[in-house]
C-alpha cells in the first residue's frame, strides 16, 4: 500500500497518509512507548507494532481496524529451559567478564516478517526467531536456529560446547548486550527458503523451512576483527531481498555495502567510499529490479551522522557498480540525521525514510526529489509502507 506509511518511534506509533495531495503524519497509538517496528500483514490486513515499554518489557500489539485501536496480542515468551551463552559488558574495574550461560527472557522485539503462506516471523534479542502459523495466536521458538552449533549447540539438553560465535550488540537502541535478529527475508517463491541476519554474527539461511541453518557469509569482510575473513562475527546492519528476483540480495553492513546475485551464496563488496557509500544502517531494494537499491549513508562509524552535514540517499541501478547521490529536497547544512536499519522503505516509485532526529522524508519519484513530512517527530525506529 503506497499511500500509507507506518512509523515506529521512541514515543509511539504514527501513521502517515496522503490526503488532499499532502503526506500527513498522526499519532496512531502507544503514546510514550517505544515502537520498534510497525508493519502490516499483507495476508490478513492486521497491523503489528513491536513495543519496548522500558519498565514493563517488550510487548506485541496489534490492530485489526487499520490502527484505530490497538490491543496487546498474545505475547512472545521464551520457552522454559531456553538458555544462551552471553558475555556481560566489562565491569567498572575493567575486568573482562567470563562468558556464561544465561536464562533467555525477552529483551527486545526487533522485527516482524510475513511469509507467503501466512506464517508470521518475529526476530528478537536475545537471538530468537519466533514463528506463528495461526495468525499470531501462538509463537514458537525456532529451535534448530536457537540450538545452532555457531552458538554453542543445544543448551536445552546440556551445556553445549561452551563457545558462541554470536556476540552482543551494545549499539542496539536500548543497549541490550546480546545478539539479536533484525532481518528476516522470506523468499516469496519458496517459503522454505529464509534468510536471517544477526548482529553480531552474520547471515544464516535455511532451505528446509527452518529445520536446518547454514552460514551465508562468504565474501563478507569484517575489518574490525583480527581475521577479516572469519566465518562469524560479522555485523550485518540490514539485509533485503528483491521479491521478483529473490537471488538478488542487499546488505548494509558495519564494514560496507554488500550485494549478492546468487542467493547469498557469495557477497560482493560494492562500497564506494568516495561516493560516501560504505557505512550506514538501512538498505531498500526495488521490488522488480534486483540491481536497484537505496541507502542512507552515514559517517562511519565513530560518528554515525550525516556526511559533512548534508543528508543524502544513495541509489544504484546497476548492482552497485555505480552510485548516485540524491540530495534534492534534503537538508544540506547542519544535518546530523542518522537513519536506523528499519527506517527506510520503498514501494514502487515511492520511498520513505525517517531519522533519529525526528525528520521524515518521502520521495514519489524513486529518490530524485524529496519532501519533508515531519521535522519534530520522536526519534524514528522504523518506516514501512503498509
Amino acid at each position: 500500500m503506497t499511500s500509507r506509511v507506518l512509523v515506529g518511534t521512541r514515543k509511539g506509533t504514527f501513521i502517515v497518509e496522503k490526503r488532499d495531495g499532502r503526506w500527513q503524519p498522526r499519532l496512531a497509538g502507544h503514546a510514550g512507548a517505544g515502537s520498534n517496528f510497525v508493519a502490516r500483514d499483507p495476508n490478513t490486513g492486521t497491523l503489528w507494532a513491536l513495543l519496548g515499554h522500558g519498565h514493563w518489557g517488550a510487548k506485541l500489539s496489534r490492530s485489526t481496524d487499520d490502527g484505530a485501536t490497538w490491543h496487546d496480542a498474545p505475547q512472545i515468551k521464551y520457552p522454559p529451559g531456553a538458555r544462551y551463552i552471553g558475555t556481560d559488558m566489562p565491569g567498572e574495574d575493567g575486568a573482562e567478564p567470563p562468558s556464561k550461560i544465561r536464562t533467555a527472557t525477552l529483551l527486545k522485539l526487533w522485527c516482524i516478517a510475513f511469509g507467503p503462506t501466512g506464517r508470521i516471523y518475529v526476530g528478537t534479542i536475545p537471538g530468537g526467531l519466533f514463528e506463528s502459523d495461526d495468525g499470531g495466536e501462538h509463537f514458537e521458538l525456532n529451535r534448530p536456529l536457537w540450538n545452532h552449533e555457531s552458538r554453542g549447540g543445544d543448551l536445552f539438553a546440556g551445556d553445549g560446547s561452551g563457545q558462541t560465535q554470536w556476540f552482543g550488540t551494545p549499539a542496539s537502541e536500548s543497549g541490550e548486550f546480546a545478539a539479536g535478529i533484525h532481518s528476516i527475508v522470506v523468499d516469496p517463491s519458496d517459503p522454505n527458503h529464509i534468510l536471517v541476519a544477526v548482529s553480531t554474527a552474520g547471515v544464516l539461511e535455511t532451505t528446509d523451512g527452518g529445520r536446518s541453518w547454514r552460514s551465508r557469509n562468504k565474501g563478507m569482510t569484517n575489518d574490525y576483527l583480527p581475521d577479516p575473513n572469519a566465518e562469524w562475527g560479522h555485523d550485518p546492519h540490514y539485509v533485503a531481498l528483491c521479491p521478483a528476483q529473490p537471488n538478488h540480495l542487499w546488505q548494509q553492513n558495519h564494514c560496507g555495502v554488500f550485494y549478492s546475485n546468487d542467493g547469498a551464496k557469495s557477497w560482493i563488496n560494492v562500497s564506494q567510499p568516495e561516493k560516501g557509500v560504505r557505512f550506514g544502517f538501512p538498505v531498500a531494494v526495488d521490488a522488480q529490479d534486483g540491481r536497484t537499491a537505496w541507502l542512507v549513508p552515514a559517517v562511519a562509524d565513530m560518528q554515525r551522522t550525516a556526511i559533512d552535514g548534508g543528508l543524502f540517499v544513495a541509489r544504484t541501478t546497476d548492482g552497485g557498480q555505480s552510485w548516485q547521490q540524491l540530495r534534492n529536497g534534503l537538508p544540506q547544512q547542519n544535518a546530523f540525521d542518522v537513519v536506523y536499519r528499519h527506517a527506510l522503505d520503498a514501494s514502487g516509485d515511492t520511498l520513505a525514510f525517517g531519522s533519529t532526529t525526528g525528520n521524515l522524508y518521502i520521495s514519489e519519484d524513486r529518490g530524485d526529489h524529496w519532501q519533508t513530512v515531519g521535522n519534530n517527530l520522536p526519534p524514528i525506529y522504523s518506516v514501512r509502507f503498509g
Partner: protein
Amino acid sequence: MATVVLTRHLHAFFPALAGQELRVDAATVAEVVQAIERLAPGFAFYICDEAGRLRPHVNIFVDQQRVADRTRLSDPVGADTEVFILQALSGG
C-alpha cells in the same frame, strides 16, 4: 486480604484495575501478582519476565519494605499487608 496499590502507569494498560481498591487473598508476593493476573490477564508479564523474575525497573514494596526476593517473589504477605507496585523513575 492484602491491599494492593498500583502505579497509575499500569492503569493505562489495565483500565479495569483503576478506580477500585484492590484486595486479594495471597500468602506471598508471587500470589499477589497471580491474583491480579486473574483480574487482568497479561498483568503478570508486565511485572515479571517469563522466568518469573521481577523486571529490573519494577519494584514492589511490602508494608514499605522493598521486596527481598526478586527472583521468586517469595516474600510473605499477611492479611493486613499493603503491597505497592511501582516503576523506577528512569527513562527519558
